């Protein structure tokens, strides 16, 4: 009892001093920290695009990503389906501050083209995911505000709000539900530039890798304004492949399939 009281005394001044903005940032940093050190990963992705009539089409691709110290991650996505875009690859260097760098490889011409990263709010391959939804989620790319503690399906969560720093973002704000125990995002609401609810993203089937890193098997993005939906299904996660910057350069992009 005395021990608990002492702990309370120590914690109380800190909590009082912390603004909702500070607490939001602290939670975001903690989530980021828990996912630090994964090194690199490969995974297969399938996107199932569904329009409001329920018609579906598929996109299949594989993704490699590399954790970069003190900057955003590098990633290389290679398309496999539909077959007319097979071999097309997309290389992205995310930066904590400033614009990302992006290159596209067009296999028919064997051409690498550097492209503008201003497309961040645009749809990724016609899906409900925007480029910015899929790029590396760096703490510095947002400001934060803690909203409340809440329960989702009986699991304790923090609800925080975050605001994109980049004026080119398609969002004014995002509501993020974070599982307190596992420090993982389970749900997000996206508000468009007019501050209307645009999309909801739900994360399903989290699995833990290397006894530390949580990855969802399925991410379901629902667009409330158009009635469209995209299921992103992840499989074959492999960590620690020993990749270096060399596996994410322009040459490798040219040789990738």
């Amino acid at each position, binding site marked *: 009892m005395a021990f608990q009281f002492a702990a309370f005394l120590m914690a109380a001044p800190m909590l009082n001093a912390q603004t909702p903005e500070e607490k939001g940032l602290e939670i975001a940093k903690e989530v980021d920290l828990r996912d630090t050190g994964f090194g690199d990963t490969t995974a297969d992705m399938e996107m199932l695009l569904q329009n409001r009539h329920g018609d579906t089409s598929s996109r299949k691709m594989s993704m490699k990503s590399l954790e970069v110290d003190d900057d955003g991650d590098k990633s290389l996505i290679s398309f496999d389906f539909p077959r*007319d875009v097979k071999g097309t690859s997309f290389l992205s260097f995310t930066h904590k501050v400033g614009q990302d760098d992006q290159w596209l490889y067009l296999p028919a011409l064997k051409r690498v083209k550097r492209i503008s990263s201003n497309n961040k709010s645009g749809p990724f391959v016609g899906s409900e995911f925007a480029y910015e939804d899929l790029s590396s989620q760096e703490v510095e790319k947002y400001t934060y505000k803690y909203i409340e503690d809440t329960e989702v399906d009986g699991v304790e969560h923090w609800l925080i709000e975050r605001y994109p720093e980049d004026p080119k973002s398609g969002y004014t704000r995002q509501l993020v539900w974070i599982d307190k125990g596992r420090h993982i995002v389970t749900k997000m609401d996206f508000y468009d530039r007019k501050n209307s609810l645009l999309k909801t993203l739900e994360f399903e089937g989290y699995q833990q890798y290397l006894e530390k890193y949580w990855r969802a098997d399925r991410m379901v993005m629902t667009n409330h304004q158009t009635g469209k939906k995209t299921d992103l299904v992840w499989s074959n996660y492999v960590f620690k*492949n020993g990749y270096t910057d*060399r596996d994410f350069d322009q040459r490798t992009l040219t040789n990738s399939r």
Partner: protein
Amino acid sequence: MRESLFDRLRIRSSVRCGYLLLALGGASVATAAEWSGYLGAEVRAYEESPEHVGQDNGGLATIVFEPEFYAEWEDGYQSIEFSPYFRWDSQDDERSLIDIRELSYLKVAGDWEFRVGISKVFWGVAESQHLVDVVNQTDLVASLDGEEKLGQAMVQVVNISRWGDFSLFVLPGFRERTFPGEEGRLRGGIVVDSDRSLYESGEGKDHVDVALRWFKILGDFDVGVHYFRGTRRDPLFELQVDGGETSLVPYYEQMDQLGLDLQYTKEGWLLKLEAIARDASSEDYSAAVAGFEYTFYGIFGSSIDAGLLVEGHLDERGEDATTSFNNDIFVGTRLGWNDEADTSLVAGVFRDWKNDSMVGLVEFERRLRGSMKLEIEVQKMGSIDPQDALYPVRRDSYAQIGLKRHF
């Protein structure tokens, strides 16, 4: 049904790849091998009757088949690629072709890369002309935009360092440019006779060309510099009269070329420059294409991207240039719908600012369903000045519709 066919192809190809691995020393690492490619059919109609004697007066149909076999092992650090190319044309025998676009082996070893075989490389940044892209010969009859290339035998060695990527190309076996035959459209008044091609080099087609290229990403700049020594890809022509028949015989000179390609990427802007300085026996000249591409993302609250393309073409030779890109400006737009069907449209106009000749083009494509692709292309000759390189083809405006089944 389609899946089962895929599976069968996969099984067959992995068996073959197994043999290949045995041949290469029997590495026991995981191998991925796969066939892909497309079968395409196009029909084209010309707006006007032909200008020149011998040209077929009617539309044409073309069938193209380009399968591709790809196998990699050692996590992609070794791979082979094989891509034969078959084209059949209903109108012009010279447009029918069997080629090997790719048959190469790649080995990546740390900061070194080695490629041996027939392959294709692309250099450059511009959209409306590919000035610095000289390694592969242009398959001119396949498309006028110079984007279709013939396979080129090569040994390519690349070293990647903090100072940039240094590539050395040794290019044996020269490939001749393709030209329309007598029945074909989009040619001059006198038919090019490729069977009698002449070469400045005594070695003819067997002259081994050499190229060096340096490439580096410097912040927002992508920079490439190259030096090429060997046979010119664009021939000069000699008029020959043989038994009352007049023909143009291609004459391939030797040249030294120094070139630069540069792109600056900032926000929605891409600023581009390609320039060459060329030293050949008959002429020394320089040429450049420079311009920009600006993209408005998500116009009018939609998910459509609209790009504005402006590129200026300069050639020191002016009206004597062997190319139509001598004093021209290209203004165009690229629309991307970002939809499920990947619908896109490129439309633009070339205008020669000295003689006011104009050519317009539109390219539209859209995935129908599955992996079927619809491609529509329109090329419209405006008023063409008699001084312009395009004067002989001024009646060759056309519309083309194509379907490609990818597998």
